């Protein structure tokens, strides 16, 4: 088993929270993991990505080869498309629908959505609104993680435990909100696919 995941977003949007949940769950499940991330200049509002690789065998490269990503999870619709060269044929695309506009030449949303929908295996969702309705707009990431969960090599229990571990420092309320976000994400994925 080997699963390659690309996480995408804009510096400051917190894609590393998703990475941390995946890492923690994979490690607890005794899998090997490699997860690269971006520090430094690009973090200042630039495009950032993280390559997450989970396997029961040895993982060599810290970077995913082109055409080998099983899925791309993005917290921003345009950033999703930037990493398409990495997606394997028929791979899964999961993204929040809300644009992060900090450039003057940001494309028309309709064109972006049309491009995303032209791919067969896509979950395009207003995760921000879902998180907000649950009372924690910061949990947008976890909604998206929930939406991708059924395609991950990690058990539901291990992912929930990882959420528990990572958020327990912030109290039970925050843990529960994030678990709600995760469950809601899962529901949406079932409705979409």
């Amino acid at each position, binding site marked *: 088993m080997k699963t390659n995941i690309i996480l995408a977003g804009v510096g400051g949007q917190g894609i590393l929270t998703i990475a941390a949940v995946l890492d923690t769950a994979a490690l607890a499940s005794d899998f090997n993991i490699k997860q*690269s*991330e971006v*520090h430094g200049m*690009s973090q*200042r509002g*630039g495009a950032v990505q993280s390559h997450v690789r989970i396997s029961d065998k040895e993982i060599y490269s810290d970077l995913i080869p082109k055409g080998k990503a099983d899925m791309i999870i993005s917290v921003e619709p345009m950033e999703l498309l930037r990493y398409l*060269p990495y997606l394997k044929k028929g791979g899964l695309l999961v993204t929040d629908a809300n644009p992060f506009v900090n450039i003057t030449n940001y494309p028309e949303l309709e064109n972006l959505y049309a491009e995303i929908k032209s791919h067969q295996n896509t979950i395009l969702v207003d995760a921000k609104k879902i998180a907000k309705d649950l009372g924690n707009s910061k949990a947008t990431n976890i909604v998206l993680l929930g939406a991708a969960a059924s395609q991950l090599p990690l058990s539901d229990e291990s992912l929930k435990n990882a959420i528990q571990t990572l958020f327990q420092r912030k109290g039970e309320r925050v843990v529960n909100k994030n678990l709600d976000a995760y469950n809601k994400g899962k529901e949406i994925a079932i409705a979409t696919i």
Partner: protein
Amino acid sequence: MKKLLLGNEALAQGAIDAGISGVYAYPGTPSTEITEYIQKSKLAEELNIHSQWSVNEKTAMEAALGMSYAGKRSMTVMKHVGLNVAADVFMNMSVSGINGGLVVVVADDPSMHSSQNEQDSRYYGRFAMIPILEPSTQQECYEITKYAFDLSENMGLPIMIRLVTRLSHSRAGIKTGDRIEQNKIKLPTNQTQFQLIPMHARGRYQHLVDIQGDNRESSEKSPFNTFFKGDDTSMGIIASGIAYNYLMENYEDGECPYPILKISQYPLPKTRIKNLFDNCDKILVLEDGYPFIEEIISDFLGENRAVIGRLSGHVNRVGELNPDSIKKALGFEVEITESIPEVVSGRPPELCVGCAHRDLFDAVNVLGKENSDQKVFGDIGCYALGVLDPFASIDTLIDMGASITMAKGAADAGIHPAIAIIGDSTFTHSGMTGLLEAVIEDTPITVIISDNSAIAMTGAQDSAASGRIVDICKGIGVAEDHLILITPLHKNLQNNIFLIRNEINHPGVSVIIAQRPCVQLPKEKKDLLRKIKSVSLN
């Protein structure tokens, strides 16, 4: 259970477990998290391991050498261009040698993700004639660091560990081992070892030359230089550091048909390379960075070349390697994958919303429109983003501290207005000496210190300049009439333009301190800053 650590963090844990008594460093991507890990480590705190930031890489390395002189183990950490700043002590401490184990960690940045160049630090290691270690994995980062300190004390030499961005900033599960106790103070037995006057230095240098064979012998036997058998001897592969990972990625379950020599310790193990040469038709060298190994083992005239790699053009010469870029050299077809849709725009980094540098650039740009002769000399930090639109305020950007000195040289040549823009931490890192030069000649330049009270680009670390800039400028001799404080806020724009214009028109050195804390500073730090002696001209 394994610990989930970045390559940088695994290395830092290795250093703690190797019994270091101090780490000395200046922040710089991709090296920063090594020192931060030790700063945040409860164990390191209990063990009283020094970890406070240094003012620059040179002071850091010298302090590490001082700790080594006292017999304790020390580590100094920097990004590749930081080693340029520390090159003076670096080149001389291989001549003096060390006492307590000393490890120099340098993180290179192939592809220049956050740097001005992609220089390869292995050349520095070879220049100083010391062993270099180059881990491939996070687990190796941990183990090789412990090994490095033993090697340092066995050889009596500083040891370089070379990292690259992709290893520094990638996580994996790490198994840690036992911790060694710190050394006690134990002064050098040889009184003249650290006294590099020529008569002693000659002897030390002769000694350095004499032990080169031992260095190579250590590489021949190194547990980190590994040979993997392969039946297809039409090609042998030498892969160093992270390039080994990219090589193996191209084979299902790592089953490469070619013989491989994985290099993680230098100087190069000549006998082992000779064996590979004798048994293979040609050699492919895979290395991230410059073609360092390829250059050493290639035939100089290139007439009997049996070595291919980045130098020969079989692998891309510039930019970092990845699993795809080496495919062709391995004889694989490069598959065509989906391309980035046209609808996607570039998204370069930008200054944060509310950042003080923005308001400073607004003022400087108005003045630039008033006088098209104006040239702005920039420096290293977040404000380097002022090179890009929408500001496009900065004409030059070269290295730490170059803003003031280049403005001076340009002013000497007749450029006016010549404005230098430098951050607070960059000013104390490398700007103060240049300002002294300008003061001595009263050169007509306008130096703007954009003081956000942080080393912002690398994550808002403490700046050595906080609360001290006014006193430093006065001490250097800047005339008080031409030492001006401004607050870069939109509501002050007109007044700030007026104040900067006045100083541009002053026919001598002026310093304008544009002061407003970084918006990324956590609340604790903002509170702490308030406690620091208030910064005012009176």
